[in-house]
């Protein structure tokens, strides 16, 4: 580990964490604006032009609020839960392959992504989301409040149930790509077709399970106000609540980025053709790499838009309907998907 390597890691980490926090803050604003447009009104438009500084005023307000901890709550875990939630969310960002590498220093290629070429890439992402369950369960338990406890338990059960189907949906992609390495998966898609065309059921399954993993409507019973007064984040105020909230949006962006990587071809700009020949730039040249970044981020943000759009259109699942869906519908469907994909790979490759 040379000194340049270390410096580059710090710089990348700095940029990524900053980017994640800014993106999460602006996603809160985007959600408010999009919800407003769906409801025939305009969202926040006072704080900056088109309300663009609203996120800063929201975060600033959260910093200034008093940090109230219930007297009978277990303080260590109460403070630890948001840390776990946001730590896991940030760690996922290190693995996401934003684009091909941009710089070459000391013979090593560096790009915006920190460790995209990990040979267990997608497995590491799934592992991190599993650890994220701890954040929610601890938040619910340590608040010493029956609503929080119910919310935390329901959320933990929901996340664990839907993780199975998520993993199986990913197996379909891994079978076709032949590797768990995220960069390898994208390169197979660049040479061939995007996996969303080869695995439509897999894409749908991954999307639905991602909605459930991030506790997002219509699966947001753990934090639904009419049902649970706020669920696992009832007893949080000030910046701890801010962290839990930002962690939720960071998870949404991470899930969208993973979906863009696995199914929508990552940094590939045009679906069925070879980008370099059509656009006329060499594969690892600067314009191509920048275009790759733009393509990747556009796909991720388009999926974030779909997440937000779905939240404001569909009614919430009841808890038993939710568990029913996870175990009795999605799990068999994902198993069928794996079997069909395996048959396809055997017959056509």
């Amino acid at each position, binding site marked *: 580990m040379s000194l340049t390597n270390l410096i580059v890691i710090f710089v990348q980490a700095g940029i990524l964490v900053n980017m994640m926090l800014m993106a999460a803050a602006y996603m809160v604003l985007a959600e408010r604006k999009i919800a407003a*447009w*769906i*409801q*025939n009104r305009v969202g926040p438009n006072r704080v900056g032009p088109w309300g663009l500084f609203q996120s800063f005023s929201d975060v600033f307000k959260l910093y200034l609020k008093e940090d109230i901890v219930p007297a009978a709550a277990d303080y260590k875990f109460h403070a630890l839960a948001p840390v776990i939630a946001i730590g896991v969310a940030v760690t996922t960002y290190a693995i996401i392959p934003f684009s091909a590498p941009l710089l070459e220093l000391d013979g090593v290629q560096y790009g915006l992504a920190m460790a995209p070429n990990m040979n267990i890439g997608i497995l590491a992402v799934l592992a991190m989301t599993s650890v994220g369950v701890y954040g929610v369960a601890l938040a619910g338990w340590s608040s010493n409040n029956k609503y929080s406890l119910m919310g935390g338990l329901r959320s933990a059960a929901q996340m664990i149930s839907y993780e199975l189907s998520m993993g199986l949906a990913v197996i379909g992609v891994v079978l076709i790509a032949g590797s768990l390495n995220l960069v390898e998966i994208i390169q197979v898609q660049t040479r061939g077709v995007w996996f969303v065309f080869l695995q439509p059921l897999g894409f749908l399954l991954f999307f639905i399970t991602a909605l459930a993993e991030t506790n997002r409507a219509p699966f947001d019973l753990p934090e639904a106000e009419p049902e649970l007064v706020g669920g696992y984040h009832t007893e949080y105020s000030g910046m701890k609540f801010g962290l839990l909230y930002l962690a939720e949006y960071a998870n949404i962006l991470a899930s969208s980025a993973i979906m863009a990587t696995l199914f929508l071809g990552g940094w590939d700009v045009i679906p069925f053709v070879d980008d370099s020949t059509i656009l006329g730039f060499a594969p690892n040249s600067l314009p191509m790499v920048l275009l790759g970044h733009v393509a990747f981020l556009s796909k991720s943000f388009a999926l974030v838009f779909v997440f937000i759009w779905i939240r404001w*259109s*569909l009614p919430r699942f009841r808890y038993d309907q939710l568990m029913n869906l996870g175990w009795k519908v999605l799990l068999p469907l994902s198993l069928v998907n794996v079997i069909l994909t395996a048959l396809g790979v055997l017959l056509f490759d």
Partner: protein
Amino acid sequence: MANITSNTESQRLTFWEKIYLPEIAKGLSLTFRQMLKPSFTRQYPEERWNPEGSYRGRPVLVLEEDGERCVACGLCSRVCPALAIEVRAAETEKDKERYPEKFEINMLRCIYCGFCEEVCPEEAIVMSKDYELVFGSQEEGILGKEKLLIPVAQLQDRLEFLRQWR
């Protein structure tokens, strides 16, 4: 008795309805079309709402060229359900012989019912169109005569409404 076995939702819906995906797609397209339609938001401090004549805003005293119309009879004070009006009469040289030396309406008690306007024999107190009331303290909420006297030209809409509908 507890479990329903006939005419369940599972039996009433067709296959395509049961998988819910077409229904979800229809719902999503509806919300998407709503996004493209114009919004109905009024940009408040820049665009203010101008009420019609029938609107009951805060009660004000009518000010004509030579002073208020009020003769300090005290009927508004007696009829007010919230006991918000206080009047003290004094003598004057004008034809009307009485005038209110002190006329106070406590806006924190006022319920904007309009009884004072309805009972006044001189049409001297009317409900204006003013709905933007802000006070810095409770003392500032008790409005004296200077804040209550409004020239008759600004109250024409309400006076027209009263003429037509009373």
